[in-house]
Each structure stands twice: as structure tokens, then as C-alpha cells.
């Protein structure tokens, strides 16, 4: 982020110019500081790790809290804050940041959760050997996420978006050399990377419609975008980006595999923050892209993912995979909320984004604490931990009840609002499927808590890791607080809606259809809990039956197919045979040269076989003809003589004859250079031959006929290409150098020398670089050999 510091210093220098500007600049600087703190931490993290295993975690906590407080205080003191710095003005791209209710809400989630997770990591990661890169990538992610949220320019937003993908990839693949880990990282990168490409295309199309990369202009151009011919492709690309990032069907398959990453990564990136980036985009771009098509595409996918994730969460037995499927399901709920495109839907989506970050973060921290304490991660082998881990049990209970949507916890309010929004939509299937999704959530959330902490004791003797329980407990308490005092955040959420709209759910206001839906889903949940083991067995049977048609299967077939095709292509083209390479090369170059000639515009070919001397016949041209014929003879000898020494001497002879030809073609400089180069080359060749044990060249009779045929083809082809172009060459460019002013300007009379030194100096620099590089490469080559 040296960029930011560069801009910051530029801002400070500019500040005194105008007092009013100066005030605004100070405020903007604070926003830049909030954004750069995580990056600063990322850079320092490897050094901090040397001071002690827990130090980076504590400093990360400090950085997160500081960013969190700066955002909060800035909002409290200034309201909306804008930073506009020129970045690439020629392309209309600015380094623009915006602090508004929407970006504040997501920014507080990103920094607040980040701070807690860093505090948790201080203990959790203390005994891990990958702690160094862990903190670096986590800091990088926190900054990228904050940047993506605050960005006020499409290109800037896209860059931060890609940076979150990249840091997620690095964090999933932390355990280098572990196949599970690298496979999962690759899967996440390919799928979310695909989303990234889709997003870039969507943004470029958006900018081409609106005529600007400025986010505010784009957000204000809704009618223009929807009416344009590019609307459908924009929407579809945008939806692909959102689905891939926020793990929605059919791109959800990367998220369960990503659970191989350490638990803090799962809690932060893969439940609270990164997977919410897609949801953030939905919230952000809703005003621009909303139409009937928006609902038609997003709502079935969102609700479908909600139910699919819920079923998978019941089927799963690994603690973290249960939570991963639950996250997929809850992200489906969030996507559906925004898909409805109503005020209530958006409000429910924003509130549930916060609630979900809190409760799912807490559940992941609980899962991490349990795995840390017991060393086990199969829910069937664990149980009755309430006495051994009382604080963790309380945190888990609060978070699980919030997830299940039980009053008075936060999850209840946002789920009720979601139910009400589906009811309002007027579609019959939306509330029905919503209730089913809610019932599934109720069942697995309760099972997660009761199985781990209630009932008979299973698993070994454990000691509760207090440092891991406390962050979880903080989040659990927050889930309760958000349920009782929703007013803490609903003001902010209302601010993020259309102007004048208010979203204020409360435990005291009951909406009858939503309450009935809640009761129905709780009833369904209890039914599932009663026959939980049977349900899981049934789901496992269904999954086995469907194993041939899953998205995972398609992904595996695609990746396997690409790798197989790549291997086959490499084996076919890179088979280690230099003869094969040269054949391919000659044929390709030949085709490239001959193709433009196909419509022969009466160009003279070999039909007229009268060979003419260049220029009018004179002593000089006759001498030239003799030299050229001799040169060909030497070239043939170099290509066919059996003794290496003879072949090399023939090559040298050809070179010296070329120098003579240069002389006769009025190029004395070339002749001199050619002689010098030829001498050097001869010496090098002779040294190599002297050092080589094998000096005779074996004949290769089998191939000779085909090689001759190829050579003949090249002879004809080159003649056909060169002959017309030689006749029509336009040498008027050279007139510039032959003008009378040359001597006055350069002080030289040898035009070729003047071109080399005065006009084309960079060519000479490049030429020297090539020689230096060749020397360096040879030096490395021989030194490696000597070491053996």
C-alpha cells in the first residue's frame, strides 16, 4: 500500500491551499488510515512473529479495533465521507472511497469480526507452524475486504475483490504440500476467480453503458442500464460473480472444502466477511440492476441454495463442514432477501448479514475451541461437554438459538423479517420454501448445540481453553443484545435503504403471517430433531444415489479433462524431439508467410525463369554474382560435410563471402562488422570442436529425402514471398536520413553510423543487452556443469 501513503503525503502537502478543502482532506485522511492499518499490520506481521507467538494476534486485534473505531467515530462526527484522489485520470479511474451507511455496516462487520478473530488466533495459532504467513494473509484480507466495501470506483472495487479471492486462496492452501489443502485452495481460486472475471466483464459493460467508472454515477443510472441492450448480459455476469463469491448453487462446492484452513480463517473469511462480499454487491447494485429478471434469476437460486445447504448441514458429521453447509444455506437466505427487492427484504438481508456474521462467527469459534480441546471433529463422537467447557457451551447455546431463529435472539428478528418479505412477495412458493429452509436450520442448529454439550459425556477428558471461549462468548452476548436492542443498528440499516424508508423490527411487533411461518418452521424443525439420525441416514442414501450428478462431479470432470488435454497436448507437441519442433516451426512460419499470398495479384512467380543480375550489368554486378554463387556453395558444404571441422570452416567461408557481398552492395560498415563477427564465431566454434570428444557427424539417410523435400518447399515458398515484396519495397523512409541537414544536426557524414548512434541508440542498447544476456546465460550453464 505504498500508493496510499503516497497519496496521503500528497494530500497533506495540498491541504494548506484552501481552508475548506483542508478540512475535508483531514477527514478523508482518517478514512485512508482506517483502510491502510490492516495492510500495515500485514507487512509487519512476519516481524512481529519473532517477538513471540502471540504478539501478531494481539497487534492484529489492535489494528482491527483501531480501524473499527475510526470508522465509527468518523461516521458519528462527519456522516458521509468521500475521498477522491486521481489515480489513472487518462482512463477515468479514480482512487475513490465512500463512507455511507451501507459501507459503514459492512465495514464494521469486517473490522470488528477481524479484531475478535485476531484475538482468538493469538491463542489458537500459537502452536501452529504456519502462523507467520497466516497473519500476513489475514491482514491482507482484512484490508482488501475493507477496500472492497469502501471503494467508490468500479475498477478499484474489482481490484480489492480480486485481492480477497487471492488471500482466501493463500489461506486455504496454508498447509503447503498437503494434497487436500492445495486441492481445496485451487477449487476456491478457480470458482471465485471465474466469478472475478464475470464481475470485471459486468463492470466494463456497465461502465460502457453509463460512460463512467464512478460508482455513484453508475448507481444513479438504473433506468439507463435496464433499458440498454447490454442489461441481460450485465445482470447474468453479475449474478455469476455473486453466486461464485457467496458460495451459491451451483458454485457452492468450494466452501465445504475450504474448511481445511485453520478455524479462524473459516470463521472470518468463510462465514463472516469474504462470502458476504457477494451479498454486499447485491445490496449495492440492487438500485441499478433490479427488474423482473433480477427476481426471476436470483430468487429460485437463493431459496434453492438455502434448502440444499440445510439438507447438507443435517447430513454432514464434521463440525466445520456442518457450519460450512449452514453458511451456504444462510447465504442463500441473504441472496433471496435481496432478490425480493423490497424495502423489507433489503432490511431483512442487511440485518441478517450482521446477525449471521455474529452467530456463525461464534459457532465457528466454538467449533475451533472444541477441536482444540478434544482433538476430534466428528460430531457423532462428541457429547456432554457442558461441564468441561461451560463458557463455550453458553456461547454455543446463544449462537445456535439465534441461528435457529428463537426469540429473543438477533436471528429471530431478521428471520421474521425475511418470512414477512417472502409473504409480501405474493409468490406462493417463496414462503413455503422459506419455511422449509427455516425448519432445516432450526433442526441442525439445535442438534449442533445439544449433541456437543448436552446428553451423555463422550470424547476424552478436556480442559476448556478460556482464551478461545471468551471471543465466542462475546459474540454470543452480541447475538442476544442485537435481539433485545435492534435499535442499535436498524437506524444505520434504514439509512442504507432508499431515502425515507424505515426498517425497524422489534420483539414487540408481531406480524401474523410471519409468526405463523415461524411456528410452522419450528414445528418442522422439532419433527426433524425427533428423527434426526433417521433423517441423516435417509439424506446420505439420497446423496449416494445422486453422486453422479453433483456440481462436484462436474468440477472434477472439467479439471480432470483440462489436465488430461494439457498433458496430451504437451506429449504431442513437447515430445523432446528437436526435429519435431523444427518441423512444426517451419510449417507454421511457412503457412504464415504464404497465406497472405493466396489471392496472387499477378505477382511474378517462378514461371518466368530468366534469372537477372541485380542492377545494370557491370564489373561490380558480375563480381557480386560470382561471390553470391560461391556463398551458396559454401553454405551447402556447411550443411552436408561429414567432418565437423570442415563444416564449420565452410560456414566461416560463407560468412566471409557474405562480407564481400555487403562490400559490393555498398555497405562497408556491414562488411567490416561481418568480418569481425565471423572471426569471433570461428574462434568459438573451434574451441568447442577442440573440446568435444565426438567430431564426426553421423549421416542420417532415412530422413534425407523428406528433409530435401522440405528444403525445396522453402526455396519455392521464399522465392514466392520475397520476389514481389522486393520489387515493391518503399524506401522513402530512408530519404529522411539522407537529407542535407544531417551533417549540421549530428556532425557525422557516415549515415549508417549516424543512424546507429544518434537516431536508433536504443537498438544498440538492446543489442548490447542481448550479448550480455547470452554471456550471462553461458556462464551459468558452464558453472552449473562444473559443479556437476
Amino acid at each position, binding site marked *: 500500500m505504498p500508493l496510499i501513503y503516497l497519496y496521503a503525503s500528497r494530500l497533506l502537502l495540498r491541504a494548506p491551499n484552501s481552508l475548506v478543502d483542508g478540512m475535508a482532506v483531514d477527514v478523508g485522511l482518517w478514512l485512508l488510515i482506517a483502510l491502510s492499518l490492516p495492510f500495515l499490520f500485514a507487512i509487519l506481521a512476519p516481524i512481529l512473529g519473532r517477538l513471540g507467538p502471540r504478539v501478531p494476534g494481539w497487534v492484529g486485534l489492535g489494528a482491527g479495533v483501531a480501524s473499527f473505531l475510526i470508522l465509527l467515530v468518523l461516521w458519528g462526527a462527519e456522516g458521509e465521507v468521500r475521498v477522491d484522489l486521481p489515480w489513472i485520470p487518462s482512463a477515468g479511474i479514480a482512487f475513490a472511497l465512500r463512507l455511507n451507511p451501507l459501507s459503514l455496516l459492512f465495514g464494521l462487520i469486517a473490522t470488528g469480526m477481524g479484531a475478535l478473530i485476531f484475538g482468538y488466533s493469538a491463542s489458537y495459532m500459537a502452536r501452529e507452524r504456519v502462523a507467520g504467513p497466516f497473519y500476513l494473509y489475514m491482514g491482507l484480507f482484512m484490508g482488501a475486504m475493507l477496500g472492497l466495501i469502501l471503494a467508490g470506483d468500479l475498477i478499484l472495487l474489482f481490484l480489492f475483490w480480486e485481492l480477497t479471492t487471492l488471500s482466501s486462496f493463500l489461506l486455504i492452501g496454508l498447509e503447503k504440500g498437503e494434497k487436500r489443502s492445495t486441492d481445496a485452495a485451487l477449487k476456491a481460486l478457480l470458482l471465485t476467480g471465474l466469478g472475478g472475471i464475470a464481475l470485471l466483464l459486468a463492470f466494463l459493460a456497465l461502465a460502457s453503458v453509463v460512460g463512467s467508472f464512478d460508482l455513484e454515477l453508475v448507481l444513479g443510472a438504473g433506468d439507463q442500464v435496464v433499458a440498454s441492450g447490454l442489461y441481460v448480459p450485465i445482470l447474468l455476469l453479475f449474478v455469476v460473480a455473486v453466486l461464485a463469491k457467496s458460495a451459491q448453487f451451483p458454485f457452492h462446492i468450494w466452501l465445504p472444502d475450504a474448511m481445511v484452513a485453520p478455524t479462524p480463517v473459516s470463521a472470518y473469511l468463510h462465514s463472516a466477511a469474504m462470502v458476504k462480499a457477494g451479498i454486499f454487491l447485491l445490496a449495492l447494485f440492487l438500485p441499478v440492476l433490479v427488474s423482473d429478471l433480477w427476481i426471476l434469476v436470483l430468487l429460485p437460486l437463493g431459496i434453492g441454495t438455502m434448502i440444499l445447504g440445510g439438507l447438507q448441514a443435517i447430513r454432514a458429521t464434521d463440525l466445520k463442514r456442518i457450519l460450512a453447509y449452514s453458511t451456504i444455506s444462510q447465504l442463500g437466505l441473504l441472496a433471496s432477501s435481496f432478490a425480493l427487492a423490497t424495502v423489507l427484504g433489503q432490511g431483512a438481508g442487511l440485518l441478517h448479514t450482521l446477525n449471521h456474521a455474529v452467530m456463525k462467527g461464534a459457532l465457528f469459534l466454538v467449533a475451533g475451541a472444541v477441536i482444540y480441546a478434544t482433538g476430534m471433529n466428528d460430531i457423532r463422537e462428541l457429547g456432554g461437554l457442558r461441564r468441561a467447557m461451560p463458557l463455550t457451551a453458553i456461547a454455543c447455546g446463544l449462537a445456535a438459538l439465534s441461528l435457529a431463529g428463537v426469540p429473543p435472539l438477533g436471528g429471530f428478528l431478521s428471520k421474521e423479517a425475511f418470512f414477512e418479505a417472502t409473504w409480501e412477495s405474493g409468490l406462493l412458493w417463496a414462503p413455503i420454501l422459506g419455511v422449509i429452509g427455516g425448519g432445516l436450520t432450526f433442526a441442525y442448529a439445535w442438534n449442533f448445540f445439544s449433541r456437543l454439550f448436552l446428553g451423555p459425556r463422550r470424547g476424552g477428558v478436556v480442559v476448556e481453553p478460556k482464551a478461545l471461549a471468551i471471543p465466542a462468548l462475546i459474540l454470543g452476548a452480541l447475538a442476544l443484545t442485537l435481539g433485545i436492542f435492534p435499535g442499535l443498528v436498524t437506524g444505520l440499516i434504514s439509512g442504507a435503504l432508499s431515502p425515507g424508508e424505515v426498517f425497524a423490527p422489534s420483539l414487540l411487533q408481531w406480524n401474523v403471517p410471519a409468526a405463523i411461518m415461524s411456528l410452522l418452521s419450528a414445528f418442522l424443525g422439532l419433527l426433524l430433531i425427533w428423527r434426526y439420525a433417521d433423517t441423516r441416514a435417509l439424506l446420505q442414501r439420497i446423496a449416494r444415489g445422486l453422486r453422479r450428478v453433483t456440481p462436484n462431479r462436474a468440477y472434477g470432470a472439467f479439471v480432470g479433462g483440462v489436465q488430461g488435454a494439457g498433458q496430451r497436448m504437451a506429449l504431442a507437441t*513437447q515430445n523432446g524431439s528437436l526435429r519435431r519442433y523444427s518441423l512444426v516451426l517451419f510449417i507454421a512460419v511457412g503457412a504464415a508467410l504464404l497465406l497472405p499470398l493466396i489471392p496472387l495479384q499477378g505477382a511474378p512467380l517462378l514461371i518466368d525463369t530468366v534469372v537477372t543480375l541485380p542492377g545494370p550489368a557491370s564489373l561490380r554486378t558480375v563480381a557480386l554474382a560470382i561471390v553470391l554463387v560461391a556463398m551458396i556453395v559454401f553454405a*551447402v558444404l556447411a550443411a552436408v560435410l561429414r567432418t565437423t571441422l570442415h563444416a564449420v570452416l565452410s560456414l566461416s567461408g560463407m560468412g566471409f563471402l557474405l562480407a564481400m557481398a555487403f562490400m559490393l552492395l555498398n555497405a562497408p560498415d556491414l562488411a567490416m562488422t561481418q568480418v569481425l563477427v565471423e572471426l569471433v564465431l570461428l574462434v568459438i566454434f573451434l574451441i568447442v570442436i577442440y573440446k568435444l570428444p565426438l567430431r564426426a557427424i553421423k549421416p542420417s539417410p532415412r530422413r534425407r529425402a523428406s528433409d530435401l523435400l522440405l528444403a525445396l518447399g522453402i526455396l519455392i515458398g521464399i522465392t514466392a514471398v520475397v520476389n514481389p515484396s522486393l520489387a515493391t519495397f518503399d524506401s522513402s523512409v530512408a530519404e529522411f536520413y539522407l537529407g542535407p541537414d544531417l551533417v549540421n544536426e549530428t556532425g557525422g557524414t557516415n549515415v549508417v553510423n549516424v543512424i546507429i548512434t544518434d537516431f536508433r541508440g536504443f537498438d544498440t542498447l538492446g543489442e548490447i543487452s542481448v550479448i550480455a544476456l547470452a554471456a550471462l546465460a553461458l556462464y551459468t*550453464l558452464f558453472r552449473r556443469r562444473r559443479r556437476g
Partner: protein
Amino acid sequence: MVSLLVLVIAALFAIAAYAIRHGNAIRMVIGLSILANAVNFLIISVGFKGDVAPFVGAAGTPADPLVQALILTAIVIGLGVTAFALGLAYVLIREEESTEVEDFRRLKG
């Protein structure tokens, strides 16, 4: 009508290709060197005109100086390429104990 220059250029290219197609490593380097010469000769032929070297104040029509300047650079680069290829061939021949590129096991994946 086909100029002698064109035939010489085409012949040089053909000979270079034939030498490169030969399986001997040193012969391939020789072929590369011939190819470099062929290209240089092609460029100078393109600018073939006039009857004196391009000096300011020379009596007569000067030859095209631009192509000459281009070739001047190309000759030296050709030397670098040939020298590097030769070094590569030398190391491979010593390590593989054969001059035939088809025997070079290390090139095969």
C-alpha cells in the same frame, strides 16, 4: 523475372532449414547461423539500390542506409544467439555423450 538476389535468399533459407533438420547438434547450430545470415542478406537486398555507400556528400545515388543500420544490429545479435546455442549444444553433448539430438534424454519430459 526473378532476380538473382531472390534466388540466393531462398537458397540460403532452404539450406539453413536442411541443416537445422539434421539431427546433429552442431549442424543445427550451423543451420541457425546460416539462417541469421540469410535474414541479413534478405534485408540488405530489400534496400538494394544506388551505386555508392551512404555517405553524405558522396557522388552518385547512395544505397539505403536504414536497412544497413538494422542489419548492423542484427549481425551482432546473430553472434550472441549462435554463441549461446553453441554453448547449449556443447553442454548437452558432454552430458548426454551423443551429438544426436534424438538421443538427448533430458529434453524428453
